[in-house]
């Protein structure tokens, strides 16, 4: 639908950061990649679809921020030195940072879809999508929701062992 396209319509490139394995540095890489792209003058956003273990807010010192709404949807939180990196994460939606998000697949899938269609990303050169470990609900739903848009590709992260 037009409304669905609108919130990602201004995003030039979407990059997924994947692994299969946990703890190899996906979120670390996503964060550093976003900061480096921003330093080089790009307009950058990060979508954190790790619903159980959202690491990006802390990595960008934004763990106490809150999400607000505007006419075209949810407003991503401005992070980074000039608050110019647009970040959306479930971390911002928790009342307490230690609250466990104990959801089964269907509820996770619904939120991921909202993250893709209801967030007012605006005009971005790069949207980096950080994912949790595995090949399950989050990954399937993210790829399905992003399919109508310009998905540049995936960067896979590993460690040597």
């Amino acid at each position, binding site marked *: 639908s037009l409304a669905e396209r609108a919130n990602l319509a201004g995003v030039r490139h979407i990059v997924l950061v994947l692994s299969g394995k946990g703890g190899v540095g996906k979120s670390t890489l996503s964060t550093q990649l976003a900061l480096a792209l921003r330093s080089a003058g790009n307009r950058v956003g990060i979508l954190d679809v790790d619903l159980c273990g959202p690491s990006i807010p802390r990595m960008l010192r934004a763990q106490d921020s809150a999400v607000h709404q505007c006419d075209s949807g949810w407003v991503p939180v401005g992070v980074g030195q000039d608050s110019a990196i647009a970040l959306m994460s479930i971390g911002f939606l928790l009342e307490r940072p230690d609250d466990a998000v104990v959801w089964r697949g269907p509820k996770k899938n619904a939120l991921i879809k909202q993250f893709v269609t209801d967030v007012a990303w605006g005009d971005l050169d790069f949207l980096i999508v950080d994912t949790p470990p595995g090949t*399950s609900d989050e990954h399937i739903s993210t790829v399905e929701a992003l399919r109508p848009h310009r998905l540049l590709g995936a960067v896979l992260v590993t460690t040597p062992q």
Partner: protein
Amino acid sequence: LAAHLSLSLAECPGTGSAQAGRAAACQGCPNQGLCAAGAAGPDPAEAAELRARLRAVRHTVLVLSGKGGVGKSTFSALLAHGLAADETKQVALLDIDICGPSIPKMMGLEGEQVHQSGSGWSPVYVEENLGVMSVGFLLSSPDDAVIWRGPKKNGLIKQFLRDVDWGEVDYLIVDTPPGTSDEHLSIVQYLSATHIDGAVIVTTPQEVSLQDVRKEINFCRKVKLPIIGVVENMSGFVCPKCKNESQIFPPTTGGAEKMCQNLSVSLLGKVPLDPQIGKSCDRGQSFLAEAPESPATLSYRNIIQRIQEYCEQHHFQEEKIM
């Protein structure tokens, strides 16, 4: 105008539960209609089947984290080896990480297949008294991706518990994937047919790990799963040449020690980084056997002993009550 968004974190009751589609948490869930229209609740025959299958299991320990890559599978494998060193004990290791099953490789069982007998699926035995089950054994190639949504994963976990003929087991160790989702809810629900002694929660020292582990601790409390304690892996590195100690993953917020103090859970132990650990895992050998003199081995052995003592005490108390 700005509106602060926050989420209702009420828990999914489970698509098979009597409350499916009807609980407060179900409001707004896209599956609500399906669940409400579905089966009335868990099949009592199925619950009875699980109970029968798990009746001969004396102790069950879940190995959890919230964080990936902290050493859950490594620890599960070593806990299994450590407990099985006593040949009079029968140990079972169940790997419910469906997307990333590490246990077959770590136990030197890659390429093994599951056989069926009249009494169910046979675990793959490493030793006579140490049996293993993992989705890894069901794949035709180790690189096959298992791209399943929650319900299919739950189905396999139920089969692992219902169809595997574990026989009489002193210790059932369950290795889990990172997170607090389908696999974790399901294993707790299905294992309510037996009792779970408790959970061992694994972390590394840095705050990025601890923030996920605190969530896992809250998950345990939510589902009333006792916490045996926390293990801090990758806790410092001692150079084998100059003996200097470095903090490769600095505990910027006090590490597991501070977290355990704050949350009133037991710190079972800290295990230093030893490159031999990763090598042993890659080669499918027991690190405890390969490097008996390593400080990491000493730490692991102390932790394993504490877990054993916890389980034996727990059992003794239960028997007293009965």
